[in-house]
């Protein structure tokens, strides 16, 4: 199979898929190819699509590859189809997601202690929407659920993997501003 044929075939598979297509899945189709070969083809395809400068982009998200619209034209998509209710996340939902994304696996109580406010409603809504999932139970009294983010979370936020999350503002950066009076705070913080 010619290299250009392989790329066109991969393109077809990604086009018809409603989920990001992983290298593993593609390898099940192109059994004669090594994963590294598939990766190389995908990289080339991404570059080609970008070079074409079209409204559709080929992107790596959530451990796979997906065609997505260019964000510059999102407004036209929603104007075209009025039925699309824009996906909105409340500030509460975003806060909960941020905490869980960075600290996972984490219990509800741990989330609430950071936010200082009950978060069960928001967590349930995000579970229902499958942006969050239960990862297990914490072996403490009451064995509370541990929550974490899903592949869908990565897809929604256009992240390749959790490693793709920007780093939180470094603790050192915060603590160097501390007043001398509460400098022992920095120790407490770095212990965590």
């Amino acid at each position: 199979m010619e290299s250009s044929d392989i790329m066109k075939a991969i393109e077809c598979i990604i086009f018809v898929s409603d989920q990001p297509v992983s290298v593993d899945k593609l390898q099940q189709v192109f059994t004669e190819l090594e994963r590294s070969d598939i990766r190389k083809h995908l990289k080339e395809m991404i570059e080609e699509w970008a070079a074409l400068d079209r409204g559709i982009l080929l992107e790596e998200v959530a451990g796979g590859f997906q065609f997505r619209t260019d964000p510059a034209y999102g407004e036209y998509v929603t104007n075209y189809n009025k039925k699309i209710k824009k996906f909105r996340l409340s500030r509460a939902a975003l806060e909960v997601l941020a905490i869980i994304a960075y600290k996972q696996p984490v219990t509800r109580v741990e989330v609430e202690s950071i936010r200082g406010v009950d978060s069960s409603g928001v967590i349930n809504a995000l579970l229902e929407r499958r942006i969050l999932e239960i990862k297990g139970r914490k072996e403490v009294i009451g064995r509370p659920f541990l929550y974490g983010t899903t592949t869908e979370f990565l897809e929604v936020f256009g992240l390749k993997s959790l490693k793709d999350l920007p780093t939180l503002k470094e603790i050192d950066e915060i603590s160097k501003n501390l007043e001398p009076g509460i400098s022992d705070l920095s120790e407490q913080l770095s212990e965590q």
Partner: protein
Amino acid sequence: MNEINQAAGSMDVREPCLIKLQLFEGPLDLLLHLIKKNEVDIYDIPIAVITEQYIEYLELMKDMNLQVVGEYLVIAAELSLIKSRMLLPKPVVEQEEEDPRAELVRRLIEYQRYKDAATGLSDRDILGRDVFKRDFDSTAYEVEEEVELVPVDLWALIETFREFYQRRSHLWAEDIVFEVEGVTVEEKIADVMEILKEKRALKFEELFDDCNSKFDLVITFLALLELARTENVLVAQESPDSPILISYSGENSLGIL
């Protein structure tokens, strides 16, 4: 005060007040707002001033018949404790005493970090909001339980209302108890929508032009909050100092009332 309590009481019977403190992001959010508003250093919080303002807010929420949930009271108690500790003379002990504010500051900073991270997430190109994939099911992207965002920060809106409320307070006598005229939040919402449909947009103050009692004022504000939440109106301003504008944005999802 009587008038409000009575009004609030009768409102409870007819319709449970829809607006709970869930609308707000919590006591830490309020504290960060006060710190920012007063332009003070988070590492050197003037506890007395901040505590006083914090409690003022809780009072206002009570006046508005908002349910002041326990979490807010816990922080209020914590603030008072810190305040009293700061007043105590330092014990003459060798070991270094921790600043009574340290634990609270630690919590505020940690919360701020995640607030920033949340903003970072929101700034990304979100699937179903900014970017789209093929064959998406639009209904799958709705998160129930959500609170809609408005361009004007909620606290700023409440702040404006609080100032406005105080400015107007001379207009009525405290001790006169009126019969409740039976205006419900629902009816008020309909009124506001009627006005907005005609005029398309109003200044925040104009919304309260016909209000001649505390009860009216509070009901109108609750109606505004509800309409903002359901996105029937847009609450926006050009810059933090410019007047708050309320504009009509469509007749959607009124059904949830």
